[in-house]
């Protein structure tokens, strides 16, 4: 076994047409560099699973045509509002959505991590989730037969992707405390983590976040600015100006094609993109 250290293109090549791909992140700590690489690699037919509330991570992949179905509890660009590609793709009937709820999804991932077939979840009774998810089942609570409980199937993604602060050279990782990555990594068959920096063993800043042992990590990619344009707390904020550019481009297919050319396809090497990001960063500081 052992954790492998790869470059972005090699990591993206681990993801195949038809895979269920789980991603973490919102307008904070989304694994954007790897998602851009996936787009460059021509990924398609993905079953995207958004662990927790998602944002531009899901919206960009959907906009670039990589996604066949999406399972999510919420997709919204934080303070930048509705996710334009997600919204349009659903409204136009081009994207199949499997509705989930954040807590029920966390429980389903827990069940996946535990090797259980399903798990009961609180709430959901009386909602239309039960109308649109035929695999959210009502069963009788064996201990209170007068009570019905919703059960949901375990989630076991083929691959999961998240961005983290650090990895050490042994493959141990420190990730965001606001995401469920330790659990998601356990539930997933293959785990790819992009990190801001790789440090020597013993040098991990464990107080910064959730420690995840190398045992659960298959692939690490060193990708500085890997969450850009979403934020990586302690490293860089979300780029508001870029988000405005994104939103504007998302309004028109032609404009979005240009956006993809300019910000995704033209950067064949992530290093170049990092330079772009850091230049934006320093401008940001000057403007502030």
């Amino acid at each position, binding site marked *: 076994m052992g954790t492998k250290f790869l470059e972005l293109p090699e990591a993206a090549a681990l993801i195949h047409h038809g895979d269920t791909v789980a991603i973490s992140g919102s307008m904070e700590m989304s694994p954007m560099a790897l998602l851009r690489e996936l787009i460059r690699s021509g990924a398609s037919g993905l079953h995207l699973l958004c662990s927790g509330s998602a944002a531009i991570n899901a919206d960009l992949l959907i906009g670039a045509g990589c996604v066949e179905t999406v399972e999510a509890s919420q997709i919204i660009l934080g303070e930048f509002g509705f996710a334009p590609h*997600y*919204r349009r793709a659903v409204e136009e*009937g081009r994207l199949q959505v499997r509705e989930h*709820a954040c*807590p029920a999804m966390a429980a389903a991932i827990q069940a996946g991590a535990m090797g259980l077939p399903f798990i009961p979840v609180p*709430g959901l009774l009386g*909602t239309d989730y039960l109308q649109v998810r035929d695999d959210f089942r009502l069963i009788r609570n064996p201990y209170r037969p007068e009570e019905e409980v919703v059960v949901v199937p375990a989630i076991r993604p083929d691959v999961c992707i998240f961005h983290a602060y650090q990895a050490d050279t042994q493959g141990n990782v420190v990730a965001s405390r*606001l995401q*469920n990555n*330790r659990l998601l990594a356990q539930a997933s068959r293959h785990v790819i983590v992009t990190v801001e920096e790789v440090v020597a063993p013993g040098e991990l800043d464990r107080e910064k976040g959730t420690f995840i042992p190398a045992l659960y990590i298959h692939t690490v990619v060193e990708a500085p600015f890997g969450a850009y344009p979403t934020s990586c707390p302690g490293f860089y904020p979300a780029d508001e100006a870029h988000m405005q550019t994104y939103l504007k481009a998302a309004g028109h297919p032609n404009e979005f094609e240009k956006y993809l050319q300019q910000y995704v396809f033209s950067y064949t090497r992530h290093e170049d993109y990092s330079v772009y990001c850091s230049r934006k960063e320093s401008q940001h500081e000057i403007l502030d």
Partner: protein
Amino acid sequence: MKYSTEEFMICALARELHDGETIAVGNSSPVPAAAALLAKETHAPRAQTYIMGYEREWPFEGTKEFFDYIQRGLVDVFFLSGAQIDCWGNINLHVIGDYARPKVRLPGGAGSSMVYYRCKRIFLFKTDHHAKGFPERLDFVSSSASPDFRQEGAGRLEAVYTPLAVLRPAPLTRRLQLSAIAPGTTAEEVQGKTGFDLGIEGDVPRIEAPSPQQLDVLRSKVKAALQEIYPAFVKGGIGNG
């Protein structure tokens, strides 16, 4: 003192929060986040606040442990919104129109289908007030207010806050009624902008305006904290009156 609509809602909502309560706020909820922080900095110093996205005061491992905490019944107050809210306080966060081919695809229900059932007191909020947002019937039920699905003492809808009004469930029927109105509006106007009958009888009291102390704390300490989570909201609505 002048104040923005957001400031008005924040200060009114803050008054609903009690000292010593455990108050949690989900994402995309700047008004409740500000209300919780404001309450804590004014009349509820021993309140415990957990605000999603506010890493500095986040003791949980991921969101999972936060939901677990709620599921164990340990949170007193939570806030939810809805693109549509019906007369029972059921909410829709999924679609406007037909589910299969929606007119508007909304962001989704997030944690509402659980937290509404397991936190003790629930406040709904909506930053606009139009008849379309308060229909007779929801296009999709993202979370249900029905007492059928709750244990005693859990998931009680307290009130719905909008820029124009406060609605509260009637004691017996649990149907929403007009409870108070904002300065500058009338009960008739509110009814006109609500798609279901608000059961208005006689005079409706006014919602108290923000106090100078509230505005002062909101525009200083609370603003600073909120800045980290909702910079755009702060820029738009706090302390620019």
